[in-house]
């Protein structure tokens, strides 16, 4: 007696499995609908609502939002004080990104190509560790480090290097009574907070550079400098750009750091927070929120041209 080739379905689960096997498309639809709904409704939907808001305006007289299509709110972005905010934010984001790239490259290079075994683990841990503690705690800690009577000021006084801090604070645009009230302090904290997001993609890119290419380069008589410039750097560039996307966009949107460290000058994130939260000027807040989106679109298209997404 042999068993039949097709067993009768033993219950609901068997029938379901059968249905899915016969119609693989059905399973796909079932699996993909929730994330698609999430992306479409919650994510893109809220973005569309934001865009819509930015085309409304606030009634000058009563301060009530007028739900009529207008470009007036966008025109307001070009008022001097608002342009200041946009330029200030972009300059800060660029400076932070550059500093992060310069600082992160040697670290990522060493971790990816030289560190071995326990050292490698220690490097990973060292880079990741700051991400384990609360963001706010780190920012408050930096406020104390940079304060006039903080550790840095104390150490500078003890070693007679206070003139360096005074020198930085006397540069036009970076003035403040201490590092913690100077835009330079804001910059330092931004660099510290976002550095891991630059190191990790860089390290991943550097690890993928094949040793054989370096050997070939050496065999062909290239010096170490030439190998670095013509082989390693171009191959690692997508990682650098990927990291810069993180640091750039995170700096563009942050609204906590400039509130705690710095001279209280507004950045885009903080302005949005205030316009929406305390002024009830949602249209202008929405228009401001569109600015980083546009900047990032330009940035991403430039990054794409540079080949940052070729590895995807």
């Amino acid at each position, binding site marked *: 007696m042999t068993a039949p080739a097709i067993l009768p379905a033993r219950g609901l689960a068997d029938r379901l499995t059968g249905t899915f096997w016969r119609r693989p498309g059905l399973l796909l639809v079932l699996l993909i609908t929730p994330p698609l709904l999430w992306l479409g409704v919650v994510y893109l939907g809220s973005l569309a609502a934001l865009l819509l808001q930015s085309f409304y305006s*606030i009634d*000058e*007289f*009563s*301060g009530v939002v007028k739900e009529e299509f207008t470009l007036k709110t966008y025109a307001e972005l070009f*008022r*001097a*004080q*608002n342009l*200041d*905010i946009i330029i*200030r934010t972009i300059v800060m984001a660029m400076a932070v990104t550059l500093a992060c790239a310069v600082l992160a490259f040697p670290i990522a290079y060493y971790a990816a190509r030289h560190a071995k075994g326990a050292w490698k683990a220690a490097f990973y841990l060292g880079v990741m560790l700051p991400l384990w503690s609360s963001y706010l705690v780190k920012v408050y800690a930096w*406020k*104390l480090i940079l*304060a*006039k*009577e*903080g550790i840095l000021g104390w150490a500078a006084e003890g070693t007679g290097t206070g003139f360096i801090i005074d020198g930085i604070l006397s540069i036009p645009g970076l003035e*403040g*009574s*201490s590092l*913690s*009230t100077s835009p330079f302090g804001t910059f330092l904290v931004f660099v510290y907070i976002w550095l891991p997001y630059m190191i990790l993609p860089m390290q991943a890119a550097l690890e993928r550079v094949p040793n054989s290419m370096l050997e070939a380069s050496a065999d062909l008589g290239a010096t170490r400098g030439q190998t670095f410039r013509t082989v390693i750097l171009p191959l690692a560039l997508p990682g650098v750009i990927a990291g810069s996307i993180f640091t750039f966009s995170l700096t563009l949107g942050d609204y906590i750091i400039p*509130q*705690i460290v*710095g*001279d*209280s*000058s*507004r950045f885009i994130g903080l*302005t949005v927070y*205030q*316009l929406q*939260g*305390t*002024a*009830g*000027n949602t249209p*202008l807040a929405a228009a401001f929120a569109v600015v980083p989106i546009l900047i990032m679109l330009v940035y991403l298209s430039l990054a794409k041209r540079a080949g940052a997404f070729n590895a995807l």
Partner: protein
Amino acid sequence: MNRLKLLGTTTLALMTGFSPVLAQVTEIGAPEGQVNIVAWPGYIERGETMKEFDWVTKFEQASGCKVNVKTANTSDEMVALMNEGGFDLVTASGDASLRLVAGDRVQPINIDLIPSWSTVDDRLKSAPWHTVDGVHYGVPYMWGPNVLMYNTEVFPEPPTSWNVVFEEMTLPDGKSNKGRVQAYDGPIHIADAAQYLMFHKPELGITSPYELNEDQYKAALDLLRVQRTLVSRYWHDAFIQIDDFKNEGVVASGSWPFQRNLLQADGQPIASVIPQEGATGWADTTMMHVDAANPNCSYLWMEHSLSSNLQSDLAVWFGANPAVPAACTDGRGMSTAETCTANGMDDFERIRFWTTPVSNCSQGEGACVPYYRWVSDYIGVIGGR
């Protein structure tokens, strides 16, 4: 057609005008078992932050109404929560209360149902931020001044004027005030500048720091631009300001008694004063939602807020002043005549309470600069414009 329109609008006006009055509660029935309150952080304590600060537990035991608190950090958040609904009470500041009344979000209070109403400070009973056309839309809760806090080592004598934070000058310790003073990081600070001008430039004709016409407003902004050159950082979070007074060399700033109390408790050489120009301040009111699901518990809570240890202990906890003056002296809580004086209890007349600037003011229809412009211009001033 026009008559019809007129008739329609009149009926509408009558309905919107009177329906809340009709909705007023006439007697307190059986407690519903809970009351939902929107409150400032620290306003409703049940002994969980510090054991001795508790004004909820006893109320819950006595009334059988469980108190559910939703904290809100800004007046706008409070207005938004009340618009959403689902709450019974809110502790609204003067820059939110009238918006709630105008938006028909709160209902008139039948003061006959609140036995302790008679104990409320006479100056607050019919305050314009909760009483409209003689109708009470709330029960006063707490009030406090925005004082000038200073370092006693730099100022052996209390400063007599707000000029230490508005104009460049040499402080008693021989050094400039540049980089050593702070200002509030909120557009309402424009009112402080206006109040300063009210005293020093009477020719501007400012009658209220919350009702400024274009010229008066411009003068206030100019003053704030001078202040920008003196201030290295604006304060916005009470604890950051406390830290700045300790570690950043800040010696004078507009502040709240809350920070002063904490700094003094920490042994810092800090005191505060209300200078000759007077001060701005805030006054909060417990208001009841127009669709409150738990009106009986709400009324019981409002009575409790006036009659219990709440007024006295909250005043100490928050560095504020009770709406019931007797709470300072009758020993129902931790307040004493001294703590109340320190919090500014005797300076009521010198305080101009926060209200939302609107364009239709006592100077005429559309004569005043509305709040949303205060916000964008103050951003400009802080940005160095």
